[in-house]
């Protein structure tokens, strides 16, 4: 399988006043297309910085980052925006949905910055919402949806552009364990059925057990890179949870 992400000797320094802080101290790894990777590490390990660089929100100080064969390091602001728009889907801990805006319009947001005509935007947003199990909630606003449903809208938004990778930053951090499982089940299904490369940044070891590969960071260096032969199945774990309560839907 070809690599969708190639990182070589990646270094990131910040200047805090006069003193440079070395956040990433030369990291190299590759991620294959269709893989499901968890990036773990304690706070201050540099995983957020790596996440920002992988998401083309930030540029490395030195080293190479190839996304889909494109060298991202020397692109300007607007070129990076275009890469994010075309190749990356973001899922955040706090969902980051636009308030007072319907689910469909939230999902359409990345397409607003392309030349996609309005009717095609609606159609694709509807399909993405269907794919995360939110058919029939198209016109609901975030305040009318539960946390899990809001995160699913956010996942639909990350899907709508057919990205090369989906980057999820603590996607279950604001959710209870059942909803977290639901979200992981959706990720696993998208990964296996649609072949989308998933990268999940988390500090929760439980969440990491659903991925195929775990990368651990410590003090700005790669500490451990292990492949899981038997990742857990979120769907099965969900079925084994006792007494499934019907989900509350505020009207």
């Amino acid at each position, binding site marked *: 399988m070809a690599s969708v992400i190639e990182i070589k000797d990646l270094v990131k320094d910040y200047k805090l006043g006069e003193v440079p802080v070395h956040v990433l101290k030369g990291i190299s790894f590759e991620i294959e297309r269709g893989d499901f990777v968890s990036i773990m590490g304690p706070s201050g390990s540099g995983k957020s910085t790596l996440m*920002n660089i992988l*998401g083309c*929100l*930030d540029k490395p100080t030195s080293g190479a980052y190839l996304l889909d064969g494109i060298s991202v390091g020397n692109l300007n*602001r*607007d070129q990076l*925006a*275009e890469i*994010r*728009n*075309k190749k990356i889907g*973001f899922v*955040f801990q706090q969902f*980051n949905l*636009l308030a*007072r*805006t319907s689910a469909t319009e939230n999902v359409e*947001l*990345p397409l*607003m*910055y*392309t*030349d996609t*005509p*309005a009717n095609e935007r609606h159609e694709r947003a509807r399909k993405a919402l269907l794919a995360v199990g939110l058919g029939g909630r198209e016109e609901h606003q975030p305040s009318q949806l539960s946390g899990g449903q809001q995160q699913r809208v956010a996942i639909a*938004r990350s899907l709508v*552009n057919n990205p090369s990778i989906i980057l999820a930053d603590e996607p279950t951090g604001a959710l209870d364990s059942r909803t977290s499982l639901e979200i992981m089940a959706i990720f696993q299904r998208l990964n296996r059925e649609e072949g989308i490369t998933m990268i999940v940044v988390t500090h929760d070891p439980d969440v990491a057990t659903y991925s195929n590969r775990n990368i651990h960071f410590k003090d700005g260096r790669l500490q451990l890179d292990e492949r899981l032969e038997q990742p857990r199945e979120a769907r099965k774990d969900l079925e084994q949870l006792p007494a499934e309560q019907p989900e509350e839907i505020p009207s």
Partner: protein
Amino acid sequence: MNKIVGSIRIALRALRVNRMRSALTMLGIIIGVAAVIAMVGVGAGATARIQEQIQSIGSNLIIVLPGSVSTNGVRLGSGAVASLTQDDAKAIATECPSVALTAPTVRGGVQVVYGNNNWATNAQGVTPDYMTIRDYTMLSGQFFTTQDVDAAAKTAVLGETVAQNLFGDSDPTGQVVIIKNVPFTVAGVLTPKGQSPTGQDQDDVILLPISTATQKVLGANKANAKAVASLMVQAMSPQAMDQAIQEMESLLRERHKILPGQDDDFTIRNLTEVFQAQETSAQVMSILLGAIASVSLIVGGIGIMNIMLVSVTERTREIGLRQAVGAKTRDILLQFLVEAVTLSLLGGIIGIVLGLTASVLISHFANWATQVSPLSILLAFVFSALVGVFFGYYPARKAAFLDPIEALRYE
């Protein structure tokens, strides 16, 4: 296009979320635009009124008055000497190529009697050319003719004020009025002209043939039977005014045998020029009023800038998200610029409506002519859009160049 329509929708939604805030912000622009429209309307109304008055005097008008003469070192007042005559008038008309018409005038106060009514007014002895020069038209009847002047006919033309006071609503044409025991047949009534630029009632007048006036009513000047009080001259065109003045000056100096170096014994005045100065001052006033009103428009613009800065701060996370999903610098810039312009344009439109209403009310209640031109409405519209762009640009730029990482993390 797609993006602009989208931006307008986003802007309207954002403005609707903070209704009160948007309304208050717009209020600055509304007041500014309304003030500009109303003030410029008042200024333009004043200018138009002065122009109307200039029209009422007659076009391309020059007035020649008998001048001050000094005899043995004693200077006499203007008009003290009967230096200007009807013959001068004829000579000017025939010998000055830039002059179209001349109208010699004599005048004096008279008591006009009709039946039981009488009225004190100003009698002017004139020739038929006077009617042309002063752009008079007849409300009823006819002006007297050159034959009437030659024959010193006892015929009179009444101004509207005189006709009203003597005859009420009935038509005076053909009736007989008595002036200084001389019966005059009324030939007609002049169409009213209203106030002169100096505030005199131009319709409180009775016009007589100049010959009849000097012989029967006002009495001839003892020094010179053909002396006139003033000479109205119409130049061929507005451009020929200066030329006409020069021609008359040299002709009159020659006719009055004034040696080089001696002062003129007449005065030539370009009437139009005098009133054009008034018109200019009215225009200056309207520019000044507009400028003062514009200040409030700028203050309104600062209000927009202020609220847009608040809005950018409040929506930092939204901006970060939009950047993360692919919004480019110009997309964010456009979004906030459209929002600012929407605010200022909405305010502008409401302000225009309000300004128009205000100028109608001023006209109606203060009885003060106002005139709102389509151009000033268009200007107000464009200007309020420009205010939006100008004062919206800085906040929009600030939003567009936010760091997406910082913006996403903003609480």
